[in-house]
């Protein structure tokens, strides 16, 4: 059941929460066309574009980036669920194998 240890599942869970929140917010900001992310969009610059073409391509770029961010945020949500599940799996079965100074060992 447990694929990774308890510590790495906690680490993954924290990372997923951070990723979910940050990518969600970033996605929302990019969707609203924030100029801060002007360089973070896929834009194939072409010298022969007219201003209208520029505008449409910019908007398309922004949309694409925002969607990418949200998909990645969803993926992180899935990762969060998986790692939480891993944590619980470890918690239930791993207690026997945890070595602390005060625990009894069967010999």
């Amino acid at each position, binding site marked *: 059941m447990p694929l990774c240890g308890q510590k790495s599942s906690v680490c993954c869970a924290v990372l997923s929460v951070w990723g979910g929140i940050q990518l969600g917010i970033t996605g929302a900001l990019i969707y609203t066309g924030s100029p*801060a992310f002007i360089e973070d*969009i896929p834009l194939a610059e072409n*010298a022969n574009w007219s201003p209208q073409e520029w505008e449409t391509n910019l908007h398309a770029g922004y949309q694409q980036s925002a969607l*990418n961010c949200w*998909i990645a945020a969803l993926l*992180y949500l899935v990762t969060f669920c998986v790692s939480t599940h891993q944590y619980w799996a470890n918690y239930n079965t791993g207690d026997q194998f945890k070595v602390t100074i005060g625990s009894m060992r069967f*010999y």
Partner: protein
Amino acid sequence: MDLEMTEVAFFNGTGNCCSDMGTLFKSELMSRCQLYLPPEAAYNCVAELGELGLAQFVDLNPDVSAFQRQFVGEVKRCEEMERTLRYVETEIVKEKVGIADESETSIPAPAPREMVELEASLTTMENNLREVNINYVALRKNHLELSELKNMLRKTEVFLSENQLNLQELDENTRLLDDASEREKDIEDQAYSSMKFNITGGVIDRARLLAFERMLWRVSKGNVFLKVAEIDEQMEDPGSGDVLNKAVFIIFFQGEALRSRVKKICEGFHASVYPCPDSGVERREMLCGVDTRLSDLSTVLTQTTEHRHRLLVAAAATLRSSYVKVRKMKAVYHVLNMFSQRDGGRVLIGEAWLPTADIPDIRAAVNTGAQTAGATIPPTIEKVHTTEQHPTFNRTNKYTGGFQSLVDAYGVNTYREVNPSVYTIATFPFLFAVMFGDAGHGAIMLTATLWMIIKEKSLESKRNISEIFNIFFGGRYIVFLMSIFSIYTGLIYNDIFSKSFNIFGSHWSSKQMSFVATNSTPLSLGMSYMLDPKDNNSYHSEPYPFGVDPVWQSATNKIGFLNTYKMKISLIFGVIHMSFGVMLSLWNKISKKLYHQIFLEFIPQIVFLLGIFGYLVTMIFIKWVMYGANKADPFSEHCAPNLLITFINMMLMKKADVDIKMDKCHTSLNYEIDMYPGQQELQKMLLLIGVLMVPIMLLGKPLFIMYRRRQARARYDSLRDELLEPQQEEGGPVEEDFGEIMINQGIHTIEYVLGSVSHTASYLRLWALSLAHAQLSEVLWSMVMRIALASFKGYAGAIALYLIFAFWCMLTISILCLMEGLSAFLHTLRLHWVEFQSKFYEGAGYLFMPFSFRESLKQAAEDDKEVLKTIAK
């Protein structure tokens, strides 16, 4: 001399002295007291003081060796008990029985008469354990022998039956050695007796088998026959528990001469020889006997192990409490050894440093101890006057303890000196945040420290897992404050993971901008356009309400703009911090009543610092306020003078170079570009005053001391004439001391004057580190995240983003939070230790280390852990 004055001042003090008792601004008032304890109550009283943890005992018998002290016998007994306990503990740990952790504060130090009982019980426990262990080892040895014998008998059955077959060519199925004896009778006539073999059987280590065989071959010249079979069953060595792999061997030889040789060789190879009867019947009988004995033995063994386990469990239940009791007793006797006996043993006298504010509590504790012991004479505590340096006791709690330890790491503050840690609570996180200024990274640090603070109680027991975690956990409140301040400066610098937030709407606009493509200049994303703040279409002529305008993150001259801002605020903070340090030295001087030093040291110092560097800060503010892009010509932005050049010209008393471009900026007829009328005259005067302060700093104090000494000598001279006392020592030392005083003062003056220049410049690290942090953050985003967001086509970018974001997170935490955080922490610490504290701090005290059971038990527990680690391995 100074300390004495302080003592007298505070003992004679009025209500003022009570107001600064028990605050962190200065260390606590300490008194040296003598304790008079009746001997029968001494133990209990000291035990009570140990629980309280507020008395630092002074050794009154420093030249007495450890073996000649009064209570050396009791200490020896305690150590013997500790040794017993440790032995029991190692046995328990070997058996992996769980030891219950008890809360140590609930167990009081036992009375001396309890010691005898404890000793007795511990000795019996140890003896029982040792006995059981010995028996166990003996039984295991027996068991081993018997199982070896059993194996040997079994294997030799097989050998001998095979042998018979070779000789007889009989029915192969008959393996029953019962027939062997019959067969022997049958073939006896066939002169079989001459072929009768002597058999020696035994068990040997598999590792030595080859050498054994070869040796036998050589010694017997090939006349022995060795048959070997390995024992599959794994056996354990009784003493060490190692696994043994053995093999059964059986040697066939003829003649008695070989028997002795074979025996010697077997002994030499540590092979255990067992008597192997020739006839099958006997062998079978023996096998049965061995089997029964083995089963009996196993029962006895299990019983013994159970008994041992029960003993260990019983011991484990009380182990921790016994440890605590024994250690507390030992600590009390160590302290009692420091007392001196007088009056023929009717009273024990000890000396200790006590915080004056806690003397009522201490008195109560000592009286409780005396009551428990049932002493008739009450113990007394008396203050004693001493000229020794008092220890420094800063009463801290878990919030302020971290800051105090930061200050103590550089130097413990002298008794009753100003304690910088109070101010450090505010300035340290602030200066850190100026260097760290990123709200995103601050938020990461905040979550980490909040977790540590919320889970404080459960993490407290686990804090010693690793040294690094211990350090971070100990400083959790410091880091908490640092992170909150970082979020604040991050909002001011408008920097969150290198992006800016536009909360209020940027006050710059691009309405003016038009991008027109021509054939020669096609439109591209990298084109730049200049926004002039004079232009109302570009700039709203009012700044962004809070922090840096978010438009600057897209500006190519962002660094140039922020540099000047950050450099100026670094200098402002620096001069404020340093002048605050000089002010604290004023407080030191007032509390020590060295009023002459106020005029001879403090005033010149502050005038020098503020006159020159305070003036620089004032010029910064003037330039910020008076000049602007939207103002008309003498105050427009290109007329703003370069402050650094102005300052340098002021110091060197140089006239500024003529600049044609600044033609319209002159406010008066002279060539200087003045910010306000009379600037040149004011600057000259400030410079003159600053220079004049230097000789005052250099010569003021020594001359004053010389003057005072002359006065004192004049007084003594007049006295001497009256009393006719020869006083000749005053001549020589005074002269030498004066030279030393001059040198010291010279060093201090040079340090201060040069230091004010270098330390002011040193505060520019606030700018440097914040610039580095911002740039690192930006590089990380543009090199890592941008790849995921901009260089992938379509929805492949989502997967790339998913993976690259994790990578970006790791780098953010490791490089920007940890590395930059530690770097900024270090620089802030340096700023405090060197630039701030050198203005007032003496730091020549020593810490108050009270006799406290909690501390000694903690120390002993750590030593225990070390010992346990070596055993567990």
